[in-house]
């Protein structure tokens, strides 16, 4: 995944990206490897809230041995380009969970790119991505699930929802399945929407100013993404960072 040559837009997983921004930090460091042995349990979290002009590219290569389980929580909200990729290989009965909130505004391009390979039977994966975009921001989710021919009993789910606060913001969601086995459950749902106008009027009719109303709705939309972070202090850190970014967005859209 860390090719030496600068990728081009022709590369499937870079087609909606900001290549020019990527070029400014190229070549990026080698991917971080996470390896869990048989039956091991792990939890990781990345709070990516770099400064507005930063360019962040983080690549993870993950191998989960038989019966291992990794839960990854991600807030991807910083940088001109904020790109986080996961290349995951699951052995028998392993589980990978990704819960991500992607929140951006201005000219940001924020990406989550996943390739989850169910290499052996009975592995499970769950991906939940909630994206909120304002300004002229772009949010991309490219999620490939590969199921090997003998990987019966695979259960893979992707739930991807994006909320656009402005007409210039855009969200791309591309789930992709490559399935060679037949006893496989793959569920994916993608939805791109705007804030519920009926709810906004109902809230205004109760006296909520538009900014607070928007923030409440957006908070509800991303709520739950970080519920699975076991450490309370860490969970609060993620929630607070997400909330403050949402408030900033709501404020900016309110002025627009």
């Amino acid at each position: 995944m860390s090719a030496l040559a600068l990728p081009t837009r022709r590369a499937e997983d870079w087609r909606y990206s900001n290549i020019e921004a990527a070029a400014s930090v190229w070549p990026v460091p080698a991917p971080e490897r996470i390896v869990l042995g048989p039956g091991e349990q792990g939890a990781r979290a990345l709070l990516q809230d770099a400064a507005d002009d930063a360019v962040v590219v983080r690549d993870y290569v993950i191998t989960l041995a038989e019966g291992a389980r990794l839960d990854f929580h991600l807030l991807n909200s910083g940088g001109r380009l904020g790109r986080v990729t996961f290349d995951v290989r699951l052995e028998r009965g392993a589980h990978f969970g990704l819960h991500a909130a992607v929140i951006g505004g201005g000219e940001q391009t924020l990406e989550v790119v996943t390739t989850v390979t169910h290499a052996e039977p009975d592995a499970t994966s769950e991906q939940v991505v909630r994206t909120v975009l304002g300004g002229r921001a772009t949010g991309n989710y490219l999620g490939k699930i590969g199921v090997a021919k003998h990987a019966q009993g695979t259960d893979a789910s992707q739930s991807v929802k994006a909320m656009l606060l402005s007409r210039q913001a855009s969200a791309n969601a591309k789930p992709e399945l490559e399935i060679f086995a037949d006893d496989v459950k793959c569920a994916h749902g993608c939805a791109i929407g705007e804030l519920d106008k009926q709810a906004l009027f109902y809230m205004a009719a109760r006296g909520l100013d538009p900014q607070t109303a928007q923030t409440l709705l957006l908070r509800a939309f991303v709520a739950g993404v970080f519920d699975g972070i076991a450490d309370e202090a860490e969970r609060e850190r993620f929630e607070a960072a997400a909330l403050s970014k949402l408030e900033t967005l709501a404020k900016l859209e309110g002025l627009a």
Partner: protein
Amino acid sequence: MLQINNLSNTVGDKPILKGLSLSINAGEVHAIMGPNGAGKSTLAYTLGGRPGYEVTGGEVRFAPLPFRGGAGGGAAPLDPALHETASPTPNPSPEGEGDLIDLLSLAPHERAAAGLFLGFQYPVEIPGVSNLQFLRESLNSQRRVRGEEPLSGAEFIKLAKEKAALLGLDMEMLKRPVNVGFSGGEKKRAEMVQMGILDPKLAILDETDSGLDIDALRVVGAGINAIMRKPDKAVLLITHYQRLLDYVKPDFVHVLSKGRIIKTGGPELALELEREGYAEVVAA
């Protein structure tokens, strides 16, 4: 308290209200009845400022809640309207309850802060936002616009408990997301709890009686009386049936048809309508 003069509007370019006039004084309860599609909900939404309900003519004047605007406070939003009434020709309401402002010049949330409450015919569900959080934020947002101090968490919970008890709604329901999974009757009851907490000056209640069972109807009727039957408040009930009016006795009953008030009478008009139908009464 409320003066609607010759109000016309369009919804999606379709004219609905066609020169509607109605005056409501403090201390009064008015009922509006009328056939399906007459424009009753449209009137409520238009007064509330719902986007897409375009006013094409007429005016609406309203005596707002007192506004404690200090210098530089967060209370600017009501200013334009207040400036207008501070002009050399003030427009006192008949019963001298204060100056009237141009309601339609206010944003929807400012109308609420001014004391207008809309009880929805179809209350909206808001997943992920609890009733308590929603109402506390709403109340404090209103108070901010009026230049009042926000309520503390403890003060708010006390108030919410009191109003939930008044309407016989389990406090646990208020911890759940707004209207999500509530039955039709529970939604209407919850609307009245909201009204109790927000303590408006004028409540426009759109078919609050629909979906209520017999006992709930009595509780909600008593709740409306307890919250709104006061000399400085008024109620506009939109309803199809006499049953709610047995509990909340109207001073005036209006018939709304094809976008206008075509007949006004006392409480006996509702009975007459129920007995004879709109066609008879309107023709008479």
